[in-house]
């Protein structure tokens, strides 16, 4: 028998397995075709006596089953018997024959059915992840039982939806868990995480209307984790064959997210660079491109996408040189950068296209751009910029010294075969040694998950928003009615009573409607637990994460935006905050670091704290760095909070070295921006050596803000209260006119730029003396302050923000409009944009 024969036998048998799975008990035609194939095998090949007799008896069984009323038994046994047959085939190729999992595609109607009904599986997958995180800490029997029951439900659901390949995958996972001791099950956890991610990725695809059956490669990759960790020999072989391959072994849904996000980031960076061509001196644009690139790099590093990460790093280095003034962004440099981004996006497309295969071949020749970028960076003059002071020079030198070896290192890495990520198991075992104090709490949660069945109705956000809009309208209509002069004239007590009754109910409805959009932080925190778990393994720093308040609810739009900042802050805590085990022991701390993530309500807001017990912030070092960066004034006396706020300045980093995960000082800038974008605020508390606490204060919803209603030149406008420091009625001697620079307000020896809102917005009106109006002291993200002068303040009120729509999308100084009690729209000012206008 030739090798070809063996292969053809195996492929025929594999085909039969697939047919068995696809057939149902009344599907005699399929069974018939299986029978015919097996008969042919029996006659044509003489593989071994054992094989022949087993096949012969199975063929007989199959025939009998087809003649009987219900061939259910044979459908279940069939695949098992055939798998056993495959095992009997002598190993002609030196490989273990594998079961082919390829399957026929779904039909259109099946696909639609799956798309509509797959949504509920996401919850089950979240539950599974939660349970996995908990069994990883303490593998009690009950949790494992819950996992088994979730797996079983999943299998059933997938079966109903006709997702046969997933059914088989779950089945196989179930097999690998059944009949082994709890301790042995623990070793399967990495595989189970991989499994969850794979399924979650599929569910997302199906929701988008796509579906690919699981192929052999994927499934084998899932189970091979186990093999890898069991035998180092296998692992070595893997490394050898890997060569120049972009290893994509990270979790599928993380990858999918990364791909979508990166594409957005790249588009943003490209458009910023394009604009830079016409305004080469606009720092904002460089910062924007840099930030986008940094985000891509950070996540790529985390997901082990080495080539992507290195390319992004090279791009970043060149842009950084531009930021620090060592390089001019002329058109050659910009073209090179744009080419770099093109290639970056090409790489990411390749990652996407090759997700099922689990690896991507990267052609080194395409790294031309990468080489050019590094060459450009290497050729940069080390000369210090002339204009800046000595302090700045030192920093410039220091950055160059930091960067140099880094570039050489990346080049070196490029030449070598890329090493695979560290095996999961070695760290896994360390993780398990970590004691966990809230074990009990976790298993309690698991119990709740099992018993809690709450009935829900799925409603699209659009419909919900329409309902909320209508309720908003009726509230306004009602207040217009009660304010109507004719209504007031009635002076009827009973009518008034009824009207006030209506308004009470109306407010209740409005509150209830707003709460419908509220969702808990649970799944966000769950993702963070996962991130901390993965990072702590990757960095080899055992960390215990304590999560509290995950049931705290926030508006959907805020939940959607909070993930990014949390990731950056946690990454920062793990990378820079928590020390290495040795350092911790030397400092008299527990070797295991603690990171706490807690959410709670505080005076109408939700606060999320990220606390670690790491090295904390060094105030002196921060201030020095800020002074040498030119952000801080050496003469000024800064408060503790003010010093801490420096870490949010773009490009500010105290990290001595730039690592894959963080250190360029971009992350915290992103954090601050996102939080400000949600109209939240951020505080830092830190004791050096003891740790740091980031306190993020968020509004319950982005749709409502506290506003100060002001009027100026006959227009009524709304200023967000969050940006208002104080208001003052200026006295004549406090206003000074500086020639060519406008007016200055001197308030308790602090000088503020005095800006008239009417001038800023070009509202024509009679010029009045400053003493007749009110100056509002405003503060922007960077902590800069100005005095905004208006005619007067009407009142403070909570308002619902509405978008002004496409026509006004370029009017950045308006953040939206709000309908007030009179039914008229009032514009809400965007304070940060006002500052930009003032600077111009």
């Amino acid at each position: 028998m030739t090798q070809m024969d063996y292969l053809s036998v195996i492929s025929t048998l594999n085909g039969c397995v697939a047919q068995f799975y696809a057939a149902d008990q009344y599907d005699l035609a399929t069974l018939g075709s299986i029978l015919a194939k097996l008969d042919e095998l029996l006659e044509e090949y003489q593989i071994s006596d054992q094989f022949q007799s087993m096949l012969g008896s199975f063929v007989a069984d199959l025939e009998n089953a087809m003649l009987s009323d219900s061939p259910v038994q044979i459908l279940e046994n069939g695949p098992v018997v055939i798998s056993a047959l495959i095992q009997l085939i002598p190993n002609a190729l030196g490989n273990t024959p594998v079961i082919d999992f390829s399957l026929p595609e779904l039909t259109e109607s099946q696909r639609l059915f799956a798309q509509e009904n797959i949504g509920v599986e996401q919850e089950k997958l979240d539950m599974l992840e939660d349970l996995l995180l908990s069994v990883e800490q303490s593998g009690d029997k009950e949790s494992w039982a819950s996992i088994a029951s979730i797996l079983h439900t999943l299998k059933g659901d997938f079966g109903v939806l006709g997702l046969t390949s997933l059914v088989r995958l779950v089945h196989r996972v179930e097999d690998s868990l059944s009949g082994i001791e709890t301790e042995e099950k623990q070793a399967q956890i990495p595989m189970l995480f991989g499994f969850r991610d794979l399924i979650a990725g599929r569910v997302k695809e199906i929701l988008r209307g796509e579906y690919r059956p699981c192929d052999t490669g994927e499934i084998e990759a899932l189970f091979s984790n186990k093999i890898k960790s069991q035998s180092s020999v296998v692992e070595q072989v893997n490394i050898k064959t890997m060569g120049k391959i972009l290893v994509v072994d990270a979790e599928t849904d993380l990858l999918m997210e990364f791909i979508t996000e990166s594409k957005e980031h790249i588009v943003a960076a490209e458009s910023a660079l394009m604009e830079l061509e016409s305004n080469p001196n606009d720092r904002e644009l460089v910062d924007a491109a840099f930030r986008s690139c940094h985000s891509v790099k950070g996540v790529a590093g985390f997901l082990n996408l080495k080539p992507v990460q290195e390319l992004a790093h090279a791009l970043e280095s060149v842009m950084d040189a531009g930021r620090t003034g060592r390089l001019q962004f002329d058109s050659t440099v910009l073209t090179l950068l744009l080419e770099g981004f093109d290639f970056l996006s090409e790489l990411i497309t390749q990652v996407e296209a090759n997700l099922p295969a689990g690896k991507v071949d990267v052609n080194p020749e395409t790294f031309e751009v990468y080489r050019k970028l590094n060459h450009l960076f290497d050729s940069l003059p080390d000369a210090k910029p002339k204009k800046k002071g000595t302090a700045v020079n030192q920093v410039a030198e220091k950055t160059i010294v930091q960067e140099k070896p880094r570039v050489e290192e990346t080049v070196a890495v490029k030449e070598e075969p890329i090493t695979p990520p560290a095996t999961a198991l070695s760290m896994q075992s360390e993780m398990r040694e970590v004691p966990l104090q809230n074990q009990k709490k976790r298993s309690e949660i698991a119990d709740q998950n099992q018993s809690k069945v709450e009935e829900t109705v799925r409603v699209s956000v659009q419909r919900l928003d329409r309902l909320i809009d209508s309720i908003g309208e009726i509230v306004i209509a009602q207040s217009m009615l009660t304010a109507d002069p004719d209504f007031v004239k009635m002076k009827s007590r009973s009518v008034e009573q009824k009207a006030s009754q209506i308004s009470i109910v109306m407010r209740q409805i409005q509150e209830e409607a707003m709460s419908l959009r509220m969702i808990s932080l649970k799944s966000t925190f769950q993702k963070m637990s996962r991130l901390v778990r993965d990072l702590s393994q990757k960095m080899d720093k055992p960390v215990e994460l304590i999560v509290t308040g995950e049931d705290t609810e926030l508006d959907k739009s805020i939940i959607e935006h909070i993930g990014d900042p949390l990731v950056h802050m946690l990454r920062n805590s793990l990378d820079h905050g928590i020390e290495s085990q040795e350092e911790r022991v030397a400092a008299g701390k527990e070797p295991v670091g603690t990171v706490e993530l807690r959410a709670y309500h505080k005076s109408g807001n939700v606060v999320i704290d990220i606390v670690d017990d790491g090295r904390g912030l060094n105030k002196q070092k921060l201030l020095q760095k800020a002074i040498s960066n030119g952000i801080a004034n050496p003469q000024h006396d800064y408060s503790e909070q003010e010093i801490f706020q420096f870490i949010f300045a773009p490009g500010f980093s105290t990290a001595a070295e730039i690592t894959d995960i963080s250190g360029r000082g971009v992350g915290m800038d992103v954090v601050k921006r996102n939080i400000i974008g949600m109209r939240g605020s951020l505080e830092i508390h830190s004791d050096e050596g003891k740790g740091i606490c980031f306190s993020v204060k968020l509004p319950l919803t982005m749709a409502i803000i506290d506003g100060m209603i002001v009027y100026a030149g006959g227009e009524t406008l709304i200023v967000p209260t969050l940006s208002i420091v104080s208001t003052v009625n200026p006295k004549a001697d406090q206003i000074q006119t500086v020639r060519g620079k406008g007016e200055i307000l001197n308030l308790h020896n602090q000088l503020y730029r005095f800006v008239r809102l009417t001038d800023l917005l070009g509202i024509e009106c009679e010029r009045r003396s400053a003493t007749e109006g009110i100056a509002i002291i405003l503060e922007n993200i960077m902590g800069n302050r100005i005095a905004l002068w208006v005619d007067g303040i009407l009142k403070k009120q909570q308002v619902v923000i509405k978008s002004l729509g496409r026509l006004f999308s370029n009017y950045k100084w308006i953040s939206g409009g709000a309908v007030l009690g009179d039914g008229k729209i009032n514009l809400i000012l965007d304070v940060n944009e006002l500052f930009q206008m003032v600077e111009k």
Partner: protein
Amino acid sequence: MENSEVLEVSEQFGTHLAGQYLTFVLSGEEYCIELFKVQQIIQQESITKVPLSPSFILGVINLRGKVVPVVDLRIKFEMNVGERTEKTCMVVLQLSTSGSPFTVAFIIDEVKEVTTIPEDVIEEVPEFGGSLDVTFLMGVAKINNSVRMLLDIDKLFSIEELNRLDSLQE
């Protein structure tokens, strides 16, 4: 008011343009827009001015909880802006230019009628189609010795046009 006219079937310029139109008066001239694009006609509402916007964008109104921009075409096309009378009102359009739905209102001097314009009265735009830039006209309809101009409202509020407005503003 006129009665609907009898339809004749023949291959000519107006075939794809025939249909129901809203006729209104803008600075003394009669214009038509396709009826299905009109969401509603409302009386004057109090308009909130948007500072720093071009003069023909009058501002925004609250249309049952939605913010809707109000445009004065008379200013945009440098026509005479007459006194506001009782007949002055706003036409709210629901457009779906470039894929996304877009609501906009514009001020007109007077609503004339809703009528079906048959294809045989629709002709190509002559070189001088009135005060309006001819690129924004789809055709002209001759009815009872009067000439009505068929506005290409999608083009008027297309992305390119809106972007042009934005650049004018800067």
